[in-house]
């Protein structure tokens, strides 16, 4: 029995060839169909995820969440879509028109473009390029550019402040993220995503738990949601870089944020949770696709849970966490993993011993780093400010 995915692909291919299309044109049409399918699935997922997230947020914070449009409010996203598509655009006076209008499209495109190289199942992969990991890092960085463009072009002080602050934060967190990405590359000796997925025996989260942890924390910062949502701290910056955006242009930033969160889930799945691998996934690729999206959804929900439970942290704390903890730890981790991997390659060890040594070493580094951080915690204590003067009504004894 042929698999569903290959069946459909062959059917379209034979249909086109039967109509007299050349082999090159057939390949082109198949690739175009594939990319449109992936993009459309992304949009469909986001429409569902927005409802899931809002319902989950409501439940976790002791509210109802959306509950009017349809049973359990499941049509809320569609209602929002109709509303946002019929909303007037307001361009602020003095805005840099070109950049202002390109920014939302670029924000969305930078997240979508990452999906071009994802392996969905065995042999079901858009572009299995040799520099897959570099492609992801490079394309993902365009999102930061979009934020800077949006903040700078909208001629608003809050937007500019929010954009500068978020760019400082996002580029800082890019470093531990990329160094953590080096660890799966190092363990599988390849930057091809399909090879990285197939090399995971067992999943890399067991071989390199510390890299997985660092990657998760720094990608959560990259998404820019709580506890790292300094990009749009409502109480400080109104709405950050998209203060002046309305209608569908704001909608694009909003959708890009949700899709980015799901994309991070997919990245963690590919690099540390075995991607599409699972029971029977090689025999039936359609199962691999289900495993891939299922694991990504699981990570997405975990990230949502974390962000809905924790308060926002201050910008200096946030940058300290990055420069004084995550970057040094990720460097030490990288060097330790590289040396251990190379040394153990000299001996022929059973796989389980290799995994055990790696796991133990990672845990030791994490423990040591936490111990050192705790010891140094007093050293970086900030100076105490004198208490602020408070207006006291006359006749009241002030202490």
């Amino acid at each position: 029995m042929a698999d569903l995915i290959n069946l459909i692909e062959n059917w379209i291919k034979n249909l086109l060839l039967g109509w007299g299309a050349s082999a090159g044109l057939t390949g082109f049409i198949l690739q175009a169909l594939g990319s449109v399918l992936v993009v459309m699935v992304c949009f469909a997922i986001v429409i569902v995820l927005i409802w899931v997230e809002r319902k989950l947020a409501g439940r976790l914070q002791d509210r109802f969440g959306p509950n009017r449009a349809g049973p359990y409010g499941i049509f809320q996203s569609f209602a929002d879509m109709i509303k946002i598509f019929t909303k007037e655009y307001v361009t602020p006076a003095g805005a840099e028109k070109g950049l202002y209008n390109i920014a939302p499209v670029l924000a969305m495109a930078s997240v979508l473009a990452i999906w071009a190289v994802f392996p969905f199942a065995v042999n079901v992969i858009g572009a299995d390029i040799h520099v897959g990991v570099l492609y992801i890092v490079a394309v993902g960085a365009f999102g930061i550019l979009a934020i800077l463009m949006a903040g700078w072009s909208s001629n608003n002080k809050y937007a500019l402040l929010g954009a500068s602050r978020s760019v400082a934060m996002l580029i800082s967190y890019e470093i531990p993220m990329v160094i953590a990405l080096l660890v799966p590359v190092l363990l599988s000796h390849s930057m091809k995503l399909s090879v990285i997925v197939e090399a995971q025996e067992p999943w890399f989260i067991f071989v390199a738990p510390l890299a997985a942890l660092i990657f998760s924390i720094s990608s959560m910062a990259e998404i820019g949601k709580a506890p790292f949502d300094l990009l749009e701290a409502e109480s400080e910056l109104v709405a950050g870089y998209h203060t002046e955006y309305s209608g569908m242009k704001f909608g694009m930033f909003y959708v890009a944020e949700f899709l980015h969160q799901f994309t991070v889930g997919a990245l963690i799945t590919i690099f540390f949770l075995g991607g599409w691998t699972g029971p029977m996934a090689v025999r039936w690729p359609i199962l691999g696709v289900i495993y891939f999206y299922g694991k990504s959804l699981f990570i997405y929900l975990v990230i949502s849970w974390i962000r809905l439970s924790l308060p926002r942290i201050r910008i200096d704390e946030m940058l300290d966490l990055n420069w004084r903890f995550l970057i040094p730890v990720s460097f030490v981790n990288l060097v330790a993993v590289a040396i251990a991997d190379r040394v153990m390659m000299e001996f022929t060890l059973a796989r389980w011993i290799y995994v055990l040594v790696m796991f133990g070493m990672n845990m030791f580094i994490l423990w040591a780093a936490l111990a050192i951080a705790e010891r140094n915690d007093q050293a970086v204590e900030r100076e105490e400010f004198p208490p602020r003067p408070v207006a006291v009504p006359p006749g009241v004894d002030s202490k």
Partner: protein
Amino acid sequence: MLNYWLYIGIFLVVAVVVPLVAVLLPVLIAPKKPSARKEEVYECGIESKGNIRIQFKSQYYIYALIFLIFDIEVIFLFPWAVALGELPIFAVVEGVIFIAILFAGLIYAMRKGALAWS
């Protein structure tokens, strides 16, 4: 191999066109009633004064500068990580020394207080 880059090219076009269509659709169906009041820059109800494109806080640029150094370093480390299995031990140690030099740079920046938010 060339096929893959063609796919990425197609994908990038699709990834730009789909959001572009979504952004352009309201231009056709949404109402259009611009007014000077509406287009004012938002600033909590008061009128916005002065230009925003000014010089401010150099701290941001220091972060950008340090980021640049480390990002380039990471680009150099990717080939090293890929080839680790075939490299002699000496080359592995060389990579570690490369990391150590930049790590010393990080500690120097930290000691100088360049990374302390003020």
